[in-house]
């Protein structure tokens, strides 16, 4: 297992290199630059800015270390993601860290909601196959999976914030300055204290982001449960006189989890990295919003930094899921 993990980690290096190189070249191939303004800058200003950010050098050249690409790779090798070209005097790593703290809270909250709600709905639907509860579950799954989260978010805001006044429209209510890298810090544990959360600001964005994966989890769970419930070992378990709860929880649900886990990893990564629209609708200062804005602003530093960060995050999330398989299904072994 350890060798497998090490091998996977080593494979991430060429993966990251390929992603960095392709993104770097594509980014520079697109028209416009970080200092393209509706009111064009005077030539002297542009020259100074280009010099300041090494944009006066060729994107790539035979003398690779005297090119923008060479400069970037050298800095990256020293774990330096550079500066934002748009948010002046800010390190990309600081902007990502600050934004990711919020995106992670939002993504994980939505994931937890989606898992609990989706699994429960899927299981209830399967256990009431073709019954009224099954139809309710299927209806929710259909609606939830087909409604874009920014539409749902706006819908929720208009009803529950503007009209009913139950929740806020702006911002995120998770604890600030969460030290998510360091479990030894007291600031790491603050997210587990309900008093630190402002639920007036949390509920709507979590719902907006979590409904789609919840609907998807519900559909997969229902299908998987229906398949498992028809297996011989379930009949055997029942014939042995086990209680229905024991049959469902110990034999059916556990065995139905493998296909669900397959999609959970990528979905967790998606929820943490793909919350841009929800962040925009609720004005949440997450890293997703920064990433999309950076593309339009041609903020080369942020484009590269967030791409590298997302790539690494998704690679680690997939590795985590692969390891979880072995935990859930003892037949799976890595060597």
């Amino acid at each position, binding site marked *: 297992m350890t060798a497998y993990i090490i091998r996977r980690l080593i494979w991430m290096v060429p993966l990251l290199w390929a992603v960095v190189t392709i993104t770097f070249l594509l980014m520079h191939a697109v028209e416009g630059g970080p200092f393209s303004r509706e*009111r064009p800058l005077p030539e002297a200003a542009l020259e100074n800015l280009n010099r300041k950010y090494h944009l006066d050098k060729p994107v790539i050249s035979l003398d690779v270390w005297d090119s923008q690409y060479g400069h970037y790779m050298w800095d990256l090798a020293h774990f330096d993601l550079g500066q934002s070209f*748009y948010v002046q005097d800010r390190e990309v790593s600081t902007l990502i860290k600050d934004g990711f703290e919020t995106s992670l809270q939002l993504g994980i909250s939505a994931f937890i909601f989606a898992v609990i709600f989706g699994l429960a709905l899927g299981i209830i639907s399967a256990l009431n196959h073709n019954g009224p509860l099954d139809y309710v579950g299927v209806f929710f799954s259909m609606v939830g999976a087909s409604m874009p989260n920014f*539409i749902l978010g706006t*819908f929720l805001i*208009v009803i529950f914030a503007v009209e009913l006044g139950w929740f806020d429209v702006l*911002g995120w209510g998770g604890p600030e300055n969460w030290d998510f890298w360091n479990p030894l810090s007291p600031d790491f544990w603050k997210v587990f204290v309900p008093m630190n959360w402002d639920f007036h600001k949390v509920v709507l964005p979590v719902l907006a982001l979590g409904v789609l994966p919840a609907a998807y989890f519900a559909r997969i769970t229902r299908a998987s449960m229906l398949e498992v419930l028809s297996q011989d070992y379930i009949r055997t378990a029942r014939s042995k006189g086990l209680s229905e709860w024991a049959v469902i929880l110990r034999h059916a649900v556990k065995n139905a989890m493998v296909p669900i886990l397959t999609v959970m990893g990528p979905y967790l990564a998606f929820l943490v990295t793909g919350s841009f629209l929800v962040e925009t609708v609720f004005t949440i200062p*997450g890293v997703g919003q920064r990433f999309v804005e950076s593309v339009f*602003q041609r903020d080369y530093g942020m484009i590269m930094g967030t791409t590298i960060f997302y790539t690494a995050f998704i690679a680690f999330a997939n590795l985590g899921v692969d390891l979880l398989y072995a935990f859930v299904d003892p037949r799976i072994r890595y060597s």
Partner: protein
Amino acid sequence: MSLSKHWKFLLLTVAALTALFAFAACGDDDEEGDGGESATPTEAPAGARIDGGTLRIQASEPASLDPHFSSFASDIHLQRAIWRGLYSLDGQNEPQLSMAADFPDISEDGTVYTITLADGLLWSDGEPLVAKDFEWGIKRTCNNLVAGEYQYVLTGVVGCDAHYGAAAFDQALEDAIGVKAVDATTLEITLAQAQPTFTIILALWMTFPMPSHLFTATGDAWPTDPALLAYNGPYSLETFTPGQGHSLVPNPNWSAPQGVSPTLDKIVATYIDDLAVAANAYRNGELDFTDVNTQELETLRTEFPDEYYKFLHPSTRGLEMQMNVEVLKDLDVRLALSKAIDREALNTVVVQGGNEPSTSWIPEVDGGHPPDAFDAEIGFNEVEAKQHLADAGFPDGAGFPNLTILVGNSPSAVATAEFLQDAFKTVLNIDTTVESVDGATRSDRFTNQEFELFPGGWLHDYPDPENWVLGLFDTGGSLNNYNCSDPDIDALVDKARFNADNTERLAQYKEINELISTRVCGIAPYWHENDHWLVDSNVVGMAENISGNDSSAAGDWNMEAWGLAS
């Protein structure tokens, strides 16, 4: 609201959304507004001011805190709150004393400005504010390491261009810049030639002081941590969270040169670029002030008739024409295109009547003409438009080349381009192509002069007609990307640029405006823009000056006057 009402509302909302989706699915994207003009008071709300309170405003995220680097309105909005220059512009755009004790003592030839600072000035951290801080502020803007985007405004200061244009930092060049602190309270600035607008420039952000006691050189990095800076404006920056917002608290050492000090305890700004979100937050009572999206204008004007305000934005938009394109060199063609544009209809269709249709390039408040001044020469006239095109050799559009209208990808930009395309087809029987690209691509192509027709315009940096002309319409001007080249305009610019007789100078710029507008020299103006704001009824003091002044909130050039009423 009772429970049954909740359900009724829910059902109505569901029905409305269903209808919306159904229409969207049918592909009907016709978004014509009625353009009706509601009552729009231009005075700020009045009431009994209270001491204290927190004002919550919508804002855009500043890209930089550094006033000597900044170029965005969102940056300047914040910087005006926390720093001030030697002078300040009042509601009529007249320079007033700020950190200076008196107006400049100007040498006979108009090139040397001697300015004395007011007594007892302090930074927010208690350190004295001295002439050296202003010297460093100007030198920082001229510093090529800082690469400030508004250095060009200081091009008249001796040595500023040479230092800024150098390939590397050179201390000798910085020392040669024509600004020096004679003593702690006296500043001397030397210009290459007389510049009648220079006192106005001393009110602008690129001449704000630099707290020299916190830095070792003018080119040092500008901190982003509010605690590492010092302030001389009415407020201090308490917090600054990128992507989220900032908060301001009164500066205890604000000198209140005009006798106005903040009454608020705090201003909290939330960065919201999606104005539909801001409108919902305003409805929900989470904001006291927000900018308004023109696409929601009619809805919000109706919903908040007593809280909606319209102010002039110092900006003119028009159809820019690349005069290197053979067919657009012909004045008759340019006049035909200009006269084919029904500016009233454009304003109604695209921005719900939110702007001010105009045929004058320079707004009247900045020394130009009234908006309808040149209606007879370049305004909507179908018959004359057809005749001009025929005179140019294209009767009924026959043989006219297909030109491309390059436009950004915002809904209003695309709607503008499609309106123009339809007008040219209907009136002139000529085909045009609309190419919609993202903002950076559009700007890049404009800078590289890779366009034929381009809806664009100008937002002034300071309230003087020269800012609407210099570099923009003189032959070879650095911002003259449409290649307007008119010997009459050039001759007048030469006369006006350094004319110390202000009355004559302003008359010359007025004449230039007439030439630009009537000869469609690179642009056919179609409107002056307006700002649209929602201001809660308990807010006082958000009074805008006559030309808006590049602001992003009502009256943000005089933020110390903002307050709350009981």
